[in-house]
């Protein structure tokens, strides 16, 4: 099995790895680059725990091949907050107890961040449908939705 050399950018850093063509981007991130914040919950694109952005588009990294990352810009949960400051969504998730086990949390944060970039003031329904591909089995989603709403309000400069 011949591996392919892949050069890509992850969270702003240039990186290289060797990928078996059958290997997913999720596997490459987790096993070749040590970025284990993206999770595998299903491997079929149904749970969203592996959500990352590729060239600015929200995708399931379990449904992207590692070799497809050649030349791309990848953003993962590890790049979300910056080195010293959390993203408002990260803070609001902790404040609102929007996580219980925390396994779906990285994927939901990455997805929610993308939502707020496209829509600074989403309705509850818009948030729920945007996040429909991110399964959470612990919370019943209530506190997740509230945390996203509160983070959005803060980012708009409004008091929640």
């Amino acid at each position: 099995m011949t591996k392919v050399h892949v050069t890509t950018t992850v969270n702003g850093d240039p990186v290289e790895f060797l990928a078996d063509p059958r290997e997913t981007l999720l596997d490459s991130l987790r096993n070749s680059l040590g970025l284990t914040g993206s999770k595998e919950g299903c491997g079929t694109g149904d749970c969203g725990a592996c959500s990352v952005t590729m060239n600015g588009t929200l995708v399931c990294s379990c449904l992207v091949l590692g070799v497809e990352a050649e030349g791309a810009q990848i953003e993962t949960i590890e790049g979300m907050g910056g080195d010293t400051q959390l993203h408002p969504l990260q803070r609001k998730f902790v404040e609102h107890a929007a996580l219980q086990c925390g396994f779906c949390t990285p994927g939901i944060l990455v997805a929610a961040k993308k939502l707020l970039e496209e829509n600074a003031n989403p309705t509850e329904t818009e948030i729920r449908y945007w996040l429909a591909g991110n399964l959470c089995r612990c919370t019943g989603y209530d506190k997740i939705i509230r945390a996203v709403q509160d983070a959005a309000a803060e980012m708009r400069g409004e008091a929640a």
Partner: protein
Amino acid sequence: MRYHTPSTFEDAARLAASASGLTRFLAGGTDVLVQLRAGMVQPDDLIDLKKISGVDAIERTEDGGWHIGVAVPGIRLGGHADLCADWPGVVEGMELVGSTQIQGRATLVGNLCNGSPAADSVPGLVAAGATVTITGPNGTRTVPVEDIPVSPGKTSLAAGEVVSAITLPPRGSNGGDAYLRFIPRTEMDIAVVGCAVNLRLDGDTITEARVALGAVAPTVVLVPEAADAIIGTTLDDAAIAALVAAAEAACNPITDKRGTVEFRTEVAGVLAKRAARIAYSRAKGENA
């Protein structure tokens, strides 16, 4: 498995034609990767079409129709205001495929070539009268979308043939289309039944119509009898009743984990009625 990134469809077709083992084309990958990872398919050659020039383009054709590249993901269709204004039913069908994340990858052509009778984007394409261009070892040919799937998971494409473009006809005036599907949840399910209706009005009277049903037969089916039931009418109650009866009569579904014969048949009629009403009001220029 070998991974190829040809730069033309001719090269892609040549690669596929000369491959000795199992070949798969890769666009969005949302079906191929699932099959690969589950071990259902072990391709020897995977041919990624995304490096081919123009595959990510949405362009108006000279006659006022639309040319959509094979690697355009669903999220780009929904973001294209003019396309949405012309063919809202086609776009809403594609947008129902999977999650926001899946929309970032999944394509119309992938959804079509996966060969599923439940593919959400296909009834809308069939109702719209869309065509696909096929590039093969012996050149290109153009066929109606409904000729591609032949049975669950199987297409009419010959070895070495690859779909190289999809074309929507000009919308024209006083037309409207709509797609509805039934799923148990609000998102993330495969259609139990899907129905697309495309029609044109003269005043209040329907002059042209195409009705397509998904997940009620081995392939998505065009139902001329359902169209005939509403052509020449103002979609009055009698026309709706005839439409429902024709849609139900066209069903030849199976009972499986997603639905029963009885349920699929009954809901096909319900969706045909509801989709026709939406298409009708869109043709009238009303918001729906």
